[in-house]
C-alpha cells in the first residue's frame, strides 16, 4: 500500500510562511487572508476536540490569529517553523480557555507531543484537501461525494444520478485526476 502523506511535504504551505507572516503583520490583506486559509480550519478543529464547544473553538481561532499579527515581529524562523509556532500559541490559548470554561485550575487533557504532532499534521493536511476539493467542478465533487464519502458502488451512483454506468465510471476517473492535479498544485505529495 502507499505510505502516508506528510504535511512536511507541502511546500507552498511551509515555504513562504515566514514572509507571509511578515506581510500579514504589515497589513497586507492578501497575506492576512492566506494565513487565515491555512490555519483557521486546523485551529478550529483543534479547539473543537480540546474544548468540545463550538463557541470556544471560534474564540480560540480569533485569539490565536490576533496573537499572530501582534507577535509577528517576535517570530524567530531559526527556532521553529511558523506551523510549530502557531500551535505553540494555540496550546497555551486552549489551556486558558479550558480553565475559564471549568472555572478552576484544571488543565486540559493534552496528549503527548508526538501524538499531538500527528494529529496536527492530519488537521493541516485535511485543510489542504478541503481546498483541493474546492477546486473541482461541482460535477466532480458530486461524484466523489457519492462514490467516496457516501460509499456507493458505481452502479448505485449511476442509479442515483440517472446516468449511464460508463459515464459515471469516466466521471469518477476524471474527478480523481482533477483531484490529483489540485493536490499536486497545492504541494501534497504521496
Amino acid at each position: 500500500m502507499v505510505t502516508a502523506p506528510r504535511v512536511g511535504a507541502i511546500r507552498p504551505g511551509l515555504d513562504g510562511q515566514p514572509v507571509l507572516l511578515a506581510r500579514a503583520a504589515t497589513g497586507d490583506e492578501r497575506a492576512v487572508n492566506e494565513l487565515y486559509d491555512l490555519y483557521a480550519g486546523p485551529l478550529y478543529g483543534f479547539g473543537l476536540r480540546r474544548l468540545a464547544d463550538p463557541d470556544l473553538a471560534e474564540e480560540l481561532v480569533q485569539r490565536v490569529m490576533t496573537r499572530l499579527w501582534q507577535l509577528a515581529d517576535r517570530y524567530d524562523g531559526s527556532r521553529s517553523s511558523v506551523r510549530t509556532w502557531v500551535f505553540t500559541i494555540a496550546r497555551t490559548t486552549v489551556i486558558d480557555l479550558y480553565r475559564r470554561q471549568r472555572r478552576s485550575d484544571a488543565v486540559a487533557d493534552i496528549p503527548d507531543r508526538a501524538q499531538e504532532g500527528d494529529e496536527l499534521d492530519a488537521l493541516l493536511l485535511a485543510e489542504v484537501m478541503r481546498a483541493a476539493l474546492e477546486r473541482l467542478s461541482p460535477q466532480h465533487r458530486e461524484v466523489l461525494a457519492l462514490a467516496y464519502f457516501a460509499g456507493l458502488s458505481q452502479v448505485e451512483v449511476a442509479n442515483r444520478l440517472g446516468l449511464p454506468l460508463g459515464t459515471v465510471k469516466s466521471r469518477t476517473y476524471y474527478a480523481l485526476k482533477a483531484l490529483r492535479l489540485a493536490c499536486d498544485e497545492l504541494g501534497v505529495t504521496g
Partner: protein
Amino acid sequence: MRGCQDARVHLGAYVLDGLSPAERAQVEAHTRACHACRSELADLAPLPGLLALVEEAPPAPPPELRTRVLAGAPRRRLAPRRVLALVAAALVAGIALGMVATALLPPRAPEPAVVLDLLPGEGFQTTGSASFTTTREGLRVELALTDLPPLPEGAIYEAWLSAPDTDGPISMGRVEPTPDGRATFTWFAPGALDEYSGVWVTAEPDATDPAHDGPTVAAAQLPGHGKGRDD
C-alpha cells in the same frame, strides 16, 4: 476490458472500491501486464487516504468567522512618502556599492525598479537579473535566470532573500526552469529593498526539506545592512 483506454476509466472506480468483483479482477489483470496503467494507478492510489483525512477531520469553522477575525487584522500603514524615501535610499545605496544598478522610469509606472545582475555560484554558469519594484503589494522581486542545468530527481531550485534584521534566510519558494534552462520568478517581500542584504538561488537536494542546504547557483548583493530604518 479491452485495452488501456477501457482500463483507465475504471481506475477511479477501482481505487474507490466501486467496481463489481469481475471488473475488479479485470483491472488487476490489466495493470499487472501494463506498466503505464500501473503507474497511473499509483498516482491515484493515495487519494482515498487523503480524502479520509477530510472525512475524519472536525467540521470547518463557520464562514462568518473570517469576517470577525479579519476585522482585528492590522491595517497597512506605510505612508507613500516613506515608500519613496526608501526607494531613493535603496537606489543611492545600490549605486554606492558599485553594483550594476539601473533605475528604470517607464512613463506610466510611478515606482522605479532597481535591476541587479545575478552572478553564477561556484561550479555554475547560471546568470540573470534580479529586479526590485516597490508596489502597493510590497517589494516585488523578479528574477530572470538562464543556464540552469537539469537537476537530479527530487532536487529543486529555490530562491532566497537575506535580511540583517532576521535570523536565517527567507525562502521565496521554488523556481521552476523550462527545459532549456531558463526561469522567471516573482515574489512579494515585506518592507523595502534597503532592508535586504542578499538575493540568491540554490539547488536544494531534497524538495521535501524546507531547510537551506543546497549550493548557490546565482546570487547578488543587496544594499541593506540592517541600518536602513530611519524613523
